[in-house]
């Protein structure tokens, strides 16, 4: 066989960085950071149901130590960027890997969530940008003027607009799908798979996704339904 030696990558981090397996590992580790954020953000949000004082107090408490807040934001931002970067690299590879597509192809052994990660991801990114502009920066003000510090009021004003709530609910369902695959898949990417543990991990990922979706969606639904603490 004619052989030509190509691309000897002697610099270990670069070789790791450029490999599909390395990219998946980066995806998994940043995914863990983002999953933790999603969970604790949900717990924070649920203080809405304890009333105006509690959620506004929580909002103020987060801002009491700006250094800590910004440290957390930087970690999240770096995670998001790396998560997107590795998915873009893998997507480019995927697009080049099958130049002629199939006329007919059936899926027989995969979840809807796993096949739509490339769709749920970018839509979630669009949602996050919107969400930050709406409830963090106050740059978008649907349903009334944004009041700095009045988390409760801003939530009620924003989610009283039906399409804001709908967009939020759809995005949270997509987040649930993304987690349903990602939360077990990250273990696989990091080299952990066991015939006894992996089915359990898949169930836990499903449970986590359902809890997260219900936890987030509860707020706009209760605001729209007029049930307010």
């Amino acid at each position, binding site marked *: 066989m004619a052989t030509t030696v190509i691309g000897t990558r002697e610099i270990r981090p670069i070789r790791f960085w450029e490999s*599909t*397996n390395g990219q998946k590992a980066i995806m998994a580790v940043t995914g863990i950071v983002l999953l933790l954020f999603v969970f604790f953000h949900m717990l924070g949000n649920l203080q809405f149901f304890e009333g105006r004082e509690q959620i506004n107090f929580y909002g103020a408490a987060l801002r009491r130590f700006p250094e800590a807040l910004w440290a957390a934001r930087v970690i999240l931002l770096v995670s998001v960027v790396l998560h997107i970067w590795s998915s873009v690299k893998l997507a480019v590879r995927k697009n080049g890997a099958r130049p002629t597509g199939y006329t007919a192809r059936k899926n027989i*052994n995969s979840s809807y969530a796993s096949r739509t990660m490339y769709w749920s991801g970018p839509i979630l990114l669009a949602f996050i940008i919107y969400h930050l502009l709406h409830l963090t920066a106050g740059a978008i003000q649907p349903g009334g003027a944004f009041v700095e510090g009045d988390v409760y009021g801003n939530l009620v004003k924003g989610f009283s607009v039906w399409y804001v709530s709908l967009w939020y609910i759809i995005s949270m369902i997509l987040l649930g799908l993304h987690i349903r695959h990602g939360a077990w898949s990250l273990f696989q990417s990091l080299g952990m798979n066991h015939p006894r543990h992996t089915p359990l991990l898949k169930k836990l990922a499903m449970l986590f996704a359902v809890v997260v979706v219900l936890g987030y969606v509860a707020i706009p639904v209760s605001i729209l339904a007029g049930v307010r603490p």
Partner: protein
Amino acid sequence: MRVTLKIWRQASRGGSGKFVSYPVDNVNPDMSMLECLDVLNEQLIERGEEPVAFEHDCREGICGSCGFMINGVAHGPLPATTVCQLTMRHFKDGETLTLEPWRARAFPLIKDLVVDRRSFDRIIASGGYISTSTGGACDGNDILVPKETADRAMDAAACIGCGACVAACPNASAALFTGAKITHLGVLPQGKPEQDRRAIAMVAQMNAEGFGGCTNIGECTGVCPKEIPLEVIAAMNRDYLRGSWRARDNVVTPIRPFTEWSTGSKLKNDPTGG
């Protein structure tokens, strides 16, 4: 029974292909899919037409030569079965079957249903071996292997390299194949000396071939005629991560994907740009 075979016909590598429908009468339900193609080819030869090219060798499901998509599923609808072992009784009388070759950049089409899978050979050559000392034969059971470990290695070694995993993968990834090859050597004591190097070298060659990346979707294991579990991909990831972390002599030399029989057929998929 009678079936209509809608087959991808493509005369050569560079040419364009199209589907052609062939009605086949008097199909014996006990025939295999390949025997059905044999019957069709005899008719085509009698009519003076070009027979359908397809790859085959042992016809007992262990060589890994045969394989194509039937109605969008690699190796057809029956699980854990290659097309040579798939009998026609699993199809309905009068059914139309769409036969399509594996589609992947790393599997360039040669003719009709035959693809060039030497990318798999290059992955194996890059690390799918163990070192052994020459000299007198060592005693049997010199190296004790736990039964459970032997079973895991054997399950991974069942891979016949047919390429169905790549064909079924939405990413056209060769992770299941490479994972099986890394696992079946890596879990055994005989394969431990090269464990780190093997994973790094085989992954580097897999990436140089232009396969997609694994995103843990799981279609591969569903169509695998040997039912290789997704666990082997995790084992590959584990070996790769550990190898990347601690390897010292990490000179990795992937070779350029190359098919020598036709000049000018060099694949334009070299990720290094070189």
